[in-house]
């Protein structure tokens, strides 16, 4: 049958594209990480600098998650539960970090807190360091992942409407109570979805962090930056070993994302 042949051809073409373009790079990471055996692999990922870099990456991602989840919930509440002028403009402004190059995301913080920045004299007086230090890394990570949670929540809360919240408010429920008992159960999977996407990007951010980091080994080096340093020193096995840690995290995130998305679709039905 012609239709069946076409179908199989299209499926094969799609599978081939994904295998070549997406899976092969992934296989490259694992193959190079293990090409000199498990001992060298284990040594590379338990290396003191690698562990410190992992800790910094987790710290930055953790703070980012708290900040952006807080923002996402408040922003989604304001945008979906009320009518006001400038709503479209507000949602567009929130999306700005998605459309800006990560290099520029890092640059703007240098322009504020760096040597030429307008906040520099203030920081000097207080003896605080922001760029080329940990706070700069955290700020840059927050910037690039800023819209993730609100983006996941807004369409979901819009489609759910606010009748139940209105009824609860009329019966005298307080704001926090309404959110906890009525809104939250409806949005928990959507919230988790946004949090997962935000985590993935925060753990892997490279460009923005690279600009503000200063690349001090053991101090301001995140895991992706550590991978870059090892790679540019031609220590390929070590670079890919550390990268494979990030790959494992990415695959776990991908699986979690699919489970949550499945739950989300079920909830909608």
């Amino acid at each position: 049958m012609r239709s069946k042949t076409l179908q199989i051809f299209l499926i094969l073409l799609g599978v081939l594209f994904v295998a070549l373009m997406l899976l092969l790079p992934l296989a490259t990471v694992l193959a190079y990480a293990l090409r000199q055996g498990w001992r060298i692999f284990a040594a590379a990922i338990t290396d003191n600098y690698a562990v410190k870099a992992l800790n910094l990456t987790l710290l930055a991602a953790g703070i980012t998650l708290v900040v952006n989840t807080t923002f996402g919930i408040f922003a989604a509440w304001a945008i979906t539960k009320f009518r006001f002028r400038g709503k479209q403009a507000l949602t567009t402004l929130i999306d700005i970090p998605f459309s800006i190059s990560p290099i520029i995301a890092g640059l703007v913080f240098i322009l504020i807190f760096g040597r030429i920045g307008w906040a520099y004299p203030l920081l000097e007086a207080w003896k605080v360091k922001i760029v080329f230090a940990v706070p700069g890394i955290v700020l840059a990570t927050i910037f690039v992942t800023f819209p993730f949670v609100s983006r996941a929540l807004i369409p979901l809360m819009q489609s759910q409407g606010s009748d139940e919240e209105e009824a609860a408010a009329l019966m005298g429920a307080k704001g926090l109570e309404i959110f906890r008992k009525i809104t939250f159960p409806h949005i928990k999977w959507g919230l988790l979805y946004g949090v997962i996407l935000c985590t993935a990007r925060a753990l892997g951010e490279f460009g923005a962090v690279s600009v503000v980091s200063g690349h001090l080994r053991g101090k301001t080096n995140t895991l992706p930056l550590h991978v870059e340093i090892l790679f540019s020193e031609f220590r390929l096995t070590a670079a890919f070993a550390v990268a494979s840690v990030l790959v494992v995290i990415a695959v776990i995130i991908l699986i979690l994302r699919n489970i949550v998305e499945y739950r989300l679709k079920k909830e909608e039905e």
Partner: protein
Amino acid sequence: MSGLKAPFRRRGNNVIPGFGLSMGVTLTMLSLIVLIPLASVLLVLRDYSFAEFWRVVADKQTLATYRISLSCAGIAACVNVVFGVLLAWVITRYKFPGRRILDGLIELPFALPTAVAGIALTTLYSDKGWIGSLFDKIGVKISYTTKGITIAMIFIGIPFVVRSIQPVLEKLDPQYEEAAAVLGAGRAETFFRVVLPELLPAALTGFALAFARSVGEYGSVVFIAGNIPYKTQITPLIIMNKLEQFNYPAATSIALVMIVFSFLVLFGINLLQSKINKIARGS
């Protein structure tokens, strides 16, 4: 005209509490984290004359970076539209073993850290890598050329196109295609005259998203690009180079060009999106 009304003020009567608090938190955080930092770009350029600005952004080497970034991103986005439509079609319309895995894998470029993708692609396509060595035999170099840049951009752009088209295809009722077939249209004719026009706005959105992301992308492109001026230096890389030379005004000037460009793309995407919403509502 009823005169200008202040923005971000509540309208209509609504009993739900928390408007002041949620709007306050939203605007404060948005200003502190996004708007004020972005405004610093203009603040820095204030002491910089237009002639100086223009000399940097229209410099021969800078112009070459725009050309390389835009052409590679354009080609990559075109490839992504073709394979994005194909993948979205296969995933939504056909049932086959491994369909859900294929669907999940599309998201890989979002989940994989860009630096990891960057070193993996560079090694894979270098003259010693699995694919690069094959091409090396016929004298084609991929890593450290614009071909490599384009491949990295295809990698990061593909999920944008698939995810833009998928929801539209899911909503598109196969009955239209059946009707077209009953009326005597061939398969190709049905696809090009019935399905494709419905997909066009979504495909364009996907194209724009992938294109914008590719132009701004750093991590997955920087390793495979190789940073050769006039040949493989992309715009984010020249900004990075100026920063490393502590030439902040020059870096900021080129950054401003990129910001204006991405705002234009964002504006275009929003226009397209409102058109798609109209189609989805069925008018």
